[in-house]
Structure formats: structure tokens, C-alpha cells
């Protein structure tokens, strides 16, 4: 056996690749890291122990020994009946929380019978929610005081929350018992995901209205999940994801403070949502920097005294945009590596993507495999045996410091623009993200970055993969159901509610209590959003590319 003699043909030849030693944010990585790279690091001040300020090493003392992360897979699909079946199945398979995605019409604040929604009802792996009826059906038989529900809702969050609270109340469960999360992060919609209805400032008013309502009435519920995921999906690199998400987070804090709420009343309920991309250590450094910056700023700048206010609690999803349509099984490996990095980064909950998602919404087989990936990491890999096993790594700590520095540079830029809202209005974030997206694409096309099966190690011919078919008759059925529902309502009450919404929108009153009553009177999502739009107007962005 010729040990020591390497066959040239098997070498990966990384030396000749100019990007091989740069991470996704474009930092040049040194050949080796030593104690010199972290000479300035004061372990007690900058790291602490897990569960101790500034929480660089994680927010819990025992991390996953004490409690595993939440395995949170998507539980939504087309009709509310199907979504209900899927949620029950995921819970049976061992999921401990579910995310409910919305179809595109619901995301855009429109009812299924809106002519602009043709062909999209129940699409994009989301459930169609028109009224309280749909939410009642989705949650049928689910223990609402036990299972945490993550509503992937943003601009429409207030209406979704109203439907949720109204359904719970019907079942005799008061709002204070409900657990879960709303995404409700409107800033990143303008920056990246582009699902908004109103101009940024009235949208921000609505977000704060929800935070306020939840502070008073839903102490176990997270009113917002401040999301970097979509910033990264739109092309933002990890440093942009980190910097913009934190800047958005601090903006929500400032706006909620302006509404007269004490920081320790709401900061403990703020949660975050990150993406893990391909670069393993860059992912982990991103979380560590996020926890440290968040803890220090909330404590020192915003003067929060409650330790829970300092905690950067985060949900993670593996990277949908890293999945390739080519050789789709390779995505299983990508997702596994990403999921492992999220766990080593100390995530509180995790969604693993299915390998066929570059083609369509997941099939039952790929969905199961995605869930099992997390269970294998949790039970078989041994990485959970100790809290923050990578803490103290020269490379990782150095990378964390570097990311932190870059974040503060972005903060300065954003500050100079007049803050996040002004930055959105000036197109700053949109341009930054579009530039990174283009650069990434060019790096792949020029083979500066290798994606296995996509621009190297290619194979001819597409292997067919099992795809989930969408139900072709669903849309028509949904529209008919909605029409029947609308016809049996007391029309006078509907009209009166719409007038009340106009009044609140024109003034500065609170929306949530009114929306919950409106939900019980059968107002639809499209009607409630439409009534606000009458007053707030529609926002159209200038496309930046």
C-alpha cells in the first residue's frame, strides 16, 4: 500500500482556486490561527461562560444537555385540511413545534377570490388563509397551550394573530396561554423579501401595535422574529445578514420604546431568525457575534436590567438558496453540514430543508429525511454532550471578532443615512444585497467558487426526482367556499367594522383588539388589509439592480 504517496488525480487542487481561502463575506482566511490572533480577547469580558453575559458561548448554561433545540419543520400546504393533517403528522414524528407558511395570496394580503391571485391559491408550499374558518381548521385537534406555533406571517401578521386569538378563545383558551411566534418583521420585507402593502412608516406602526398587544396579553408568545434569512436568500452575504438583522432589531427596540413601553417589558420576547449557508465556521462566528453585540447593546445602550432582555434567541433554517437543482441528492449533505453548524452555533430551534426544494415544495420522503437529519445530529453525533464545544478556537474567536468589527462599520453607515427606515427609502440595503447577489453569481460562473455538481463535477442528464403535485381543483373549491362564507355573514356588521378600521388607521389608536372582534364577525384577511390600505395607501418600490 502506498501510504503517503498521493495520487495527483485525487487532489482537489484547491491552491489554484483564488476564492478557495475566502469565506462568503469575502474575508481572506489565514493559513493558520494561533493565540496571537486573539491576543486582545479577554475571555471573561468577551466570551463569558455559556449562559453568562455577553453570551458569546450561548444563552444557556447547559445548552442542549438541558434542553434540545426545537425541531421545527414546515407544517403547511395548500388547504387548511391538508395543513392540519401535515401538522399532526409532524408532531407524531417527533417535531416539537411547527411553522405555518402562507400561500402567496395570503402573503400579499388578498383573499383567494381576488382575480390577481389566479393560479397561486395554495401555492408556494403555503396554506391559504382567508378567514377565521381556515385557522379553525388548521388548528383542529392541536393542543394550543402545549404546541408552539410559528406563523410565518409578516405584513399580514396582525390579521393572522387576530384569527389565532379568536380561534383559541372559541376553544376556551385565553391568549396568555398561547405559545409561538409571528415573524412580523416588516423591515426585511422592504430590504429583501418584498412582500409589503403600505409605506414603511405605517407598516412599522402596525408592527409596534402587535408588540404592544402581546406584551400586555400574550406573555408566552414572541411577537416578532427579526429575520436575516431573507436578507441572505436575496443575496446578502453573512456579514450583511448579521449587520442588517441587528440594525433592524435595534430599530424595533427604538420604535417600541417610543410607544412608551419599558425595554424589559418587550425585549425578552424579541426573537431572531438566521440562515446557515455553506461556510461552516463563518456560520458559527455569525451567531457568536450576534449574541455578543445584542447583549451589550441592549444592556449598555438601552439600559435593560432583566437578563432575559439581553438574550439573542434564534431560530435557524438551512440555506434554501444553497440547494442545487442539479444532482439534488447532494443537497442532503449540504443541509447536514449546515444543520451541524447551526447546532454548534447554539441555535434555539432549527428547520432543515428538504433536498428537492430547488425543484418544488418537498415530497413526503424528502421531508422525512430532513427531519431525521436533525435527529441524527442530536442523538448520534455527540456534539450536544457539552456546551459550546468550539469555544476558544483561535480561528473561530478571531473570525467572531472580525465579524463584530464589520458589523459596527455597517452600523455607522446606516446611522449616517439616518437610520434603517431612511436607508430603506434611499435603497441602501436593496443595493447592497443586489451587489452581493451578482458577485456571488459571477464567482460561480467564473469558477472562483465551486459548487459540486453545478459548476464542477457535473453529470449529464437530469435524473428524475419524485415531486409533489399541487391539487389542480383546490383553487376553485377554495373560492367557492369563501363566497359561501362571505354570504352568510351579517353584512351590516362587516361594513361597520371596516369603518372602524378606517377610523383607527386615520388616528393613532390600537388595531389588535379591533381586529380580533372583526375576525369573530367574519371579516376576511383581504377586507381588513384593504380597509387599512384605503387610509395608508399602497407602496411601490423602485427596483434596484
Amino acid at each position: 500500500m502506498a501510504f503517503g504517496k498521493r495520487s495527483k488525480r485525487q487532489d482537489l487542487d484547491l491552491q489554484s482556486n483564488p476564492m478557495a481561502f475566502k469565506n462568503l463575506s469575502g474575508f481572506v482566511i489565514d493559513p493558520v490561527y494561533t493565540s496571537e490572533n486573539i491576543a486582545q480577547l479577554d475571555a471573561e469580558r468577551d466570551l463569558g461562560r455559556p449562559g453568562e453575559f455577553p453570551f458569546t458561548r450561548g444563552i444557556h448554561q447547559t445548552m442542549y444537555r438541558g434542553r434540545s433545540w426545537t425541531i421545527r419543520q414546515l407544517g403547511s400546504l395548500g388547504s387548511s385540511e391538508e395543513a392540519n393533517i401535515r401538522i399532526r403528522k409532524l408532531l407524531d414524528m417527533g417535531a416539537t413545534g411547527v411553522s405555518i407558511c402562507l400561500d402567496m395570496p395570503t402573503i400579499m394580503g388578498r383573499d383567494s377570490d381576488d382575480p390577481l391571485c389566479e393560479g397561486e391559491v395554495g401555492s408556494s408550499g403555503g396554506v391559504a388563509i382567508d378567514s377565521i374558518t381556515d385557522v379553525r381548521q388548521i388548528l383542529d385537534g392541536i393542543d394550543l397551550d402545549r404546541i408552539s406555533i410559528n406563523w410565518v406571517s409578516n405584513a399580514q401578521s396582525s390579521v393572522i394573530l387576530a384569527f389565532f386569538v379568536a380561534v383559541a378563545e372559541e376553544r376556551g383558551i385565553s391568549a396568555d396561554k398561547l405559545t409561538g411566534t409571528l415573524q412580523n418583521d416588516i423591515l426585511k420585507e422592504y430590504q429583501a423579501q418584498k412582500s409589503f402593502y403600505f409605506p414603511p412608516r405605517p407598516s412599522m406602526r402596525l408592527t409596534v401595535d402587535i408588540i404592544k398587544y402581546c406584551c400586555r396579553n400574550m406573555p408566552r408568545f414572541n411577537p416578532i422574529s427579526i429575520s436575516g434569512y431573507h436578507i441572505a436568500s436575496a443575496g446578502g452575504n453573512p456579514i450583511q445578514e448579521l449587520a442588517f438583522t441587528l440594525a433592524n432589531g435595534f430599530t424595533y427596540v427604538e420604535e417600541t420604546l417610543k410607544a412608551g413601553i419599558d425595554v424589559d417589558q418587550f425585549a425578552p420576547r424579541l426573537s431572531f431568525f438566521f440562515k446557515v449557508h455553506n461556510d461552516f465556521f463563518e456560520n458559527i462566528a455569525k451567531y457568536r457575534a450576534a449574541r455578543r453585540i445584542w447583549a451589550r447593546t441592549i444592556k449598555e445602550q438601552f439600559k435593560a436590567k432583566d437578563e432575559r432582555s439581553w438574550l439573542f434567541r434564534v431560530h435557524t433554517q438551512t440555506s434554501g438558496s444553497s440547494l442545487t437543482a442539479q444532482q439534488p441528492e447532494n443537497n442532503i449533505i449540504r443541509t447536514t453540514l449546515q444543520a451541524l453548524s447551526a447546532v454548534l452555533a447554539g441555535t434555539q430551534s432549527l428547520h432543515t430543508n428538504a433536498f428537492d426544494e430547488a425543484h418544488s415544495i418537498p415530497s413526503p420522503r424528502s421531508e422525512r429525511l430532513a427531519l431525521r437529519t436533525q435527529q441524527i445530529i442530536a442523538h448520534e453525533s455527540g456534539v450536544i454532550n457539552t456546551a459550546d464545544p468550539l469555544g476558544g478556537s483561535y480561528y473561530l474567536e478571531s473570525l467572531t471578532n472580525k465579524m463584530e468589527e464589520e458589523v459596527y462599520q455597517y452600523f455607522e453607515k446606516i446611522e449616517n443615512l439616518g437610520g434603517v427606515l431612511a436607508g430603506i427609502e434611499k435603497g441602501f440595503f436593496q443595493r447592497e444585497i443586489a451587489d452581493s447577489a451578482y458577485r456571488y453569481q459571477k464567482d460561480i460562473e467564473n469558477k472562483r467558487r465551486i459548487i459540486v455538481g453545478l459548476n464542477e463535477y457535473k453529470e449529464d442528464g437530469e435524473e428524475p426526482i419524485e415531486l409533489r403535485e399541487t391539487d389542480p381543483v383546490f383553487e376553485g373549491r377554495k373560492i367557492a367556499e369563501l363566497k359561501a362564507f362571505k354570504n352568510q355573514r351579517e353584512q351590516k356588521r362587516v361594513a361597520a367594522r371596516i369603518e372602524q378600521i378606517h377610523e383607527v388607521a386615520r388616528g393613532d389608536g390600537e388595531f389588535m383588539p379591533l381586529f380580533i372582534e372583526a375576525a369573530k364577525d367574519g371579516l376576511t384577511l383581504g377586507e381588513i388589509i384593504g380597509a387599512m390600505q384605503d387610509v395608508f395607501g399602497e407602496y411601490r418600490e423602485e427596483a434596484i439592480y
Partner: protein
Amino acid sequence: MRKIRILLAKPGLDGHDRGIKVVARALRDAGMEVIYSGLHQTPEQIVSTALQEGVDGIGLSILSGAHNAIFPKLMAFLKEKGLSDLLVFGGGTIPSKDRERLKAMGVGEIFTPGTDTQDVVNYLRGELEKKQDSKS
């Protein structure tokens, strides 16, 4: 020779505009004139922009699964306005069996995730030259 003019449009309700913006920039870098419609365009709006701008081709980006509803509508409007010979192409998460069906109704090419932008540039140059030749 006049620059190639392409309308890139994003029909449907979703905001997945990363791909179309990357393609817009790549076509521009390749010397074409690009008009990007922005989000949420109806087929009617797209055809009317194409008429106004006198473009050589229309590219649609669809990642919402609504391609089977949107492409046929667009093709019908184009026919109505006498623009049937306009090159129509698309991109997005569109399964192969749907791609075949769309091509059969006159859509030129459908590019899927992972496409090299140079392939789009080459395709447009090739097709539009062919069209020029057949006219002259």
C-alpha cells in the same frame, strides 16, 4: 446594429427577485438594453410595456408555481396585439414536464435554477439573430 432590447418581467404575487435582477444585470453587462418591470405585473401590463418599449424579447421570472396560469395568458395577449413573433423566454422553478408544455405553446426557452447567465446571453443573441435573418 441597434442594441438588443429585452423586457424582464416579474408576474405573480411573490417577491423572489434575486434571479431576475441578476439576469438583468448580466444582460446589461453584455451590452443589451434591459427594462425591468418590477414586481407583481399582470400579463396585460407586461404586454403593454413590451408594446410601449418596442422590445425584441420578453423574459418572465416565475418561482411561485403559477407558470401554468401566467404564460398562456401572456401568449394570448401577445397574439391579440399582433406580437406573436416576439421572443418569449422564462426562468424559475419550473418542472421539466411543464417546460415542455410551455415550449409547445410557443415559449422559446425556460431557464432553471443554476443556469449560467452567459447561457442566457448566448441564447438571446442566437435567437434574435435568427429572427433578423428570417426577416431580411
